[in-house]
């Protein structure tokens, strides 16, 4: 019997997820927005690990492993896009990327 209540684990994960959402919605630097997405993915992993611990299911761990792999792929492609956009516009702020708005 673990001493950590499930509700506390889930609340911590929800708090981290919301913090990541705040970062995506309020920060304007593309690099920091990508980092906030990583925080949100980690919060989901924490939820999976918490539920796995409570039900003794290994499936949750495998799923979290897949999320880590997808996060790695997402970071690689996202950062390549940031580099490519930086070569074109010399900026990492999304306020300057309004080519389709004009």
């Amino acid at each position, binding site marked *: 019997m673990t001493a950590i209540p499930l509700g506390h684990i*889930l609340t911590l994960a929800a708090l981290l997820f919301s913090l990541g959402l*705040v970062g995506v919605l309020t920060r304007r630097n593309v*690099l920091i927005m990508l980092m906030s997405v*990583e925080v949100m993915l980690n919060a989901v992993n924490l939820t999976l690990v918490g539920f796995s611990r409570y039900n003794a299911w290994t499936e949750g761990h495998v799923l979290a492993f897949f999320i880590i792999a997808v996060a790695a792929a997402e970071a690689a492609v996202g950062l390549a896009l*940031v580099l490519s956009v930086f070569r074109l516009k010399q900026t990492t702020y999304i306020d300057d990327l309004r080519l389709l708005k004009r």
Partner: protein
Amino acid sequence: MPTELLLFYALGAGAVLSTAAMLLPTTGRSPIHAALLLIVSFFFLAGLYALLSAHLLSILQIIVYAGAIMVLFTFVIMLLNLSPDEIREPKISYAKMLGGGVALFVFGKLLNGIGLAASAAKAVDLTQHDTFGTVKEVGHMMYSTFMVPFELVSVLLLVAAVGAVVLAKKNLAYVDRPVPSPAEEFKTEGHAAGDGEAAAGHGGHH
């Protein structure tokens, strides 16, 4: 208070504080500070995974997240070579306040759902199940039940790696060099070999 719960609160507070510091416009203004704070947060999360007996994931969190992914981030920040005056003062706008409100709303909704999920929770005793979360057990499941998704993830990583290389290439044809019209192409071919090549090589460069 049991040690396990005390550790949970300490690690959780560390993770939340370092993430919040990353998002604050004062401490996390420059991307490199934000990246380093995020690495700290990932180490706290690795500790939390270990506390919840996810041995393999705790190590993977450090190797893959704090190691590989964040090194990629810091490497790209270094490659961009931003000068301090390129980092802007954050300003408050209605859109950002709306974003904060949306995040707060989502947090409220999540807490609402947690109340329902946690009330019925009763942890399984792991004393009869002492291989839980170890490399052996997770690896066994990965190579039996999740065989096909596991192989698909390897394809996904390959595609992402190739895509990243192509996207970050210096001379993407449609970015750097306008596609020459057939007539122009013909003209270039008509020139003397040395001139023609030089013109083609520096054609769209600015």
